[in-house]
């Protein structure tokens, strides 16, 4: 197992190099560069100014040379400067944006799993019951309704309509990270309550889809396992239905969910972009969009490389988790 893990870790290095090269090349090949934006609307800029600025931002160099420059600095921990955010690209992404995304996505993933797993089991065990139909309906609605639409509706309901009809008694803020006017010495509980108010809507919307995904996967997986011979044998042996369900069926059915969760984590960092945009939540998803729009190559590289690293790391962890869950799987 240790050998396997080490081999996989070593394989990651060339893989990540190729990924970073592809990301860099595709980003650099986009039409336009940061200087185009300075030029737009500024008729005073002369051709000499433009050439000077392109040189100043290193854009006059060929792409392979620019990549080599980036790579040799990146391996030393210098990921360059962010023009859009006026800060070192890596520290901006990891210190300013990553904590916000973690605050949103980790509770979303944990709470979604805690809610979806029992619901998925219930839905499979009570197949075609009223609640199964209800959960199926909920899943399809969560899948098919666009997040920006659900988000907009939630904003309208909790930030406009309910405050109006309840005279402000029920009211949630329409986006943002927290109250700008919250006093720094407001105290722990005031800060927590304030943060919760701002977190409720984006967290709930992000959870909706996660719950639906996990629920449907687990339901299908459980149904498959419940109809297998070893489950029937376990029942025939007279084991309690609780033991059959949790010790035999769930343990086997949960493997696809482990894969799903393993891949969900890196996906959530970039994939929360719509939720973050609708609710003005300054996280990783939004930073990627903002950096791409403003041609901020260094930030794009940091954010996408980080998500690539997460993806390969979580793939490895998922594979290793298989062995822990299913004793038949051995990596030696």
């Amino acid at each position, binding site marked *: 197992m240790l050998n396997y893990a080490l081999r996989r870790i070593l394989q990651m290095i060339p893989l990540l190099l190729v990924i970073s090269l592809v990301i860099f090349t595709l980003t650099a090949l*986009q*039409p*336009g560069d940061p200087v185009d*934006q*300075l030029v*737009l*609307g*500024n*008729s*005073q*800029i*002369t*051709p000499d*100014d*433009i*050439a*000077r*600025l392109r*040189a*100043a*931002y*290193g854009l006059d160099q060929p792409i392979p040379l620019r990549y080599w*420059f980036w790579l040799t600095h990146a391996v030393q921990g210098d990921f360059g*400067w962010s*023009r*859009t*955010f*006026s*800060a070192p690209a890596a520290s*901006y992404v990891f210190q*300013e*944006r990553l904590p*916000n995304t973690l605050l949103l996505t980790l509770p979303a993933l944990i709470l979604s799993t805690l809610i979806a797993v029992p619901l998925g089991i219930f839905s499979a065990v009570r197949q075609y019951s009223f609640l199964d139909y209800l959960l199926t309906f909920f899943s399809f609605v969560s899948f098919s309704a666009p997040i*920006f639409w659900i988000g*907009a509706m939630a*904003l*309208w309901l*909790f*930030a*406009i309509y309910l405050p109006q009809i309840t005279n*402000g*008694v*029920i*009211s*949630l*803020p*329409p*986006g*943002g*990270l*927290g109250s*700008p*006017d919250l006093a720094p010495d407001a105290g722990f509980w005031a800060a927590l*309550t304030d943060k919760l*108010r701002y977190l*409720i809507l984006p967290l709930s919307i992000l959870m909706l889809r996660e719950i639906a995904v996990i629920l449907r996967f687990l339901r299908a997986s459980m149904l498959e396992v419940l109809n297998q011979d070893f489950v029937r044998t376990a029942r025939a042996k007279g084991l309690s239905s609780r033991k059959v369900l949790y010790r035999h069926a769930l343990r086997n059915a949960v493997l696809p969910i482990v894969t799903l969760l393993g891949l969900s984590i890196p996906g959530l960092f970039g994939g929360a972009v719509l939720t973050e*945009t609708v609710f*003005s939540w*300054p996280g990783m998803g*939004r930073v990627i969009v903002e950096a791409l729009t403003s041609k901020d190559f260094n930030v794009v590289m940091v954010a996408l490389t980080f998500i690539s690293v997460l993806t390969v790391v979580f793939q490895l962890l998922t594979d290793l988790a298989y062995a822990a869950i299913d004793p038949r799987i051995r990596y030696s």
Partner: protein
Amino acid sequence: MKKWLTLSVLLLGAGVVSSALAGQANNSLVIGTSQEPPNINDPWRTNNLVIATEITWYMEAHLIGKDDNGELYPEIATRVPSLANGDYKIVKDAKGNVIRNSVTFSIRKDAKWSDGTAITPKDFQFWLKVEQDERVPVPAREPWDKAKITLQDADTFTITFDPPYLFADQLTSAVGLNPAPSAAMEKAWSAFDAATKNLDPKTGAKQITDEWNKFIAQFTTSRGLPKVVSGPFKPTAWRAGNSLVLTRNPNYWLTPKGGADKYIQSVQYRFIADTNTLKVNILSGQLDALSYVGLSFDQAIEAQRSERGKYKTYFVPGATWEHVDIANVGARAQSLGLNDKRVRQALMYSIDRAALVKALFEGKQPVSNTWVSPISKLYQKNAKDYNFDAAKAKALFAAAGWKPGSDGILAKDGKKMSLNFTTTAGNKLRERVQQILQAQWKAVGVDINIQNFPSTVVFSGDFAPRSAEGKWDLFMYAWSNDPSVERGDLWASQFIPSKDNAYAGQNYPNFKDADYDKIWNDAKTEFDLSARVKLFDKMQSIWTDEVPSLPLYFRANPYTKVPGLVNYTYTAYSLYPSWNAAQMGWASRGAVETFTQK
């Protein structure tokens, strides 16, 4: 189930708040904007963004400012320089050509930085020294590259432009010259200087820029807030991606009527990237006002319908000019007849712009006849107005040899009049304008093929400047310019982008007219405004006759503000509401209204 219900109630309970706004209660102002600046209060404006300038003006005083009526007023300076008071001087040679001009400013005795130290000519000398430094990535150097500051006494200095600068008599922030706190920045500047002085400005450009970024980030960013400021507000907290808080600077010297305590004491900017969410914030009463960078026009129209007395929506006529460029040269333009001015005039007569602005903008955006803003003194009031006239359009097409084919589409020598029409994809308003124009042109036999791309694509060097290569036939977008410093550069042949100049010019239609070029050259050195007005009159006559572009309308910039908020106003002259930050206030708190939104 009970547990879930309890949790839900608890979560909702956490959201229970009073919907009352902080604004009037604590004399603060909450402003929403859809864009966050990378930095603020950068005296050298290295990012060139509107939102950065708007926010900067809360914390930056200027020698002279420009109010809503276009009138100059002194802020750091004791008076506005003019020929009459002798502070503005023009030097002519024997032939009468202006060879040099200069402006003298005296700094007010009570003008101070927020730390209480005096603002002195040294701060302007420091600004100019950095502006002229080859290592600093300022977007455009003109007219500062050859300017010189001479000290007259401890409070007085003269700026000389040699060659002369056309707008030296109105050195507002819009053309540069911002005070930079030399004492606060001196140490960091020396560190930058030491780190880069041995680097070659050409080969080491990137390293120099990185060092510059580190220098300026110490004074202008969310992690390095400005240390001292000159304007009426100073920054106190900036949470990246969320909000920026500014509080009143007690050392600011211009006191509004009745005393500064009757006016806004703090300003909060809330950064809300999604404009639909921004609209929800307005509707839910979370914002007192919107920034210049806020809702799109159609969203503002929707917001206006939901006002119910909670806020008011304004549409401020601006200097942002929406138009359609026509590819004037190149093999494709020639085959489509676009190099023939009769065809361009016919395209102009075929569209009903008055009906368009009425249908889409409820008449709030005025039709434009030239590229010069109607509020500019240089605007040609009787400019040729191509009122919709389908018969005239058809006659002009026929005169140029274009006759309707069996399918109704104009054709000449077997070639159909089928034009590629591009604008920024995703801009719903422009796409609607495009569809209306497509229908109007179809009625006279012009087939329009819509080919839209994202703004990052169309404004790249690979697209917009390459009309001569047939990348587009018609291209709809906007130019924005301060009307008081209009120079007509857009149409000078000198600015035609080409392979030779690395596609650097902004004369995208490739318009080239010898008469225009000559008059433009004369206007560049014509320091007498009335004489320049006459030259611009001729330039606009040539332009409207040649029609290198189709003028559509001047954009009105929408914003909202709640009742009772006074002096939060702007026009195309003053540019952003922050020009008057010191006087913004709540009428209920004793603020006196001195400017009303026009």
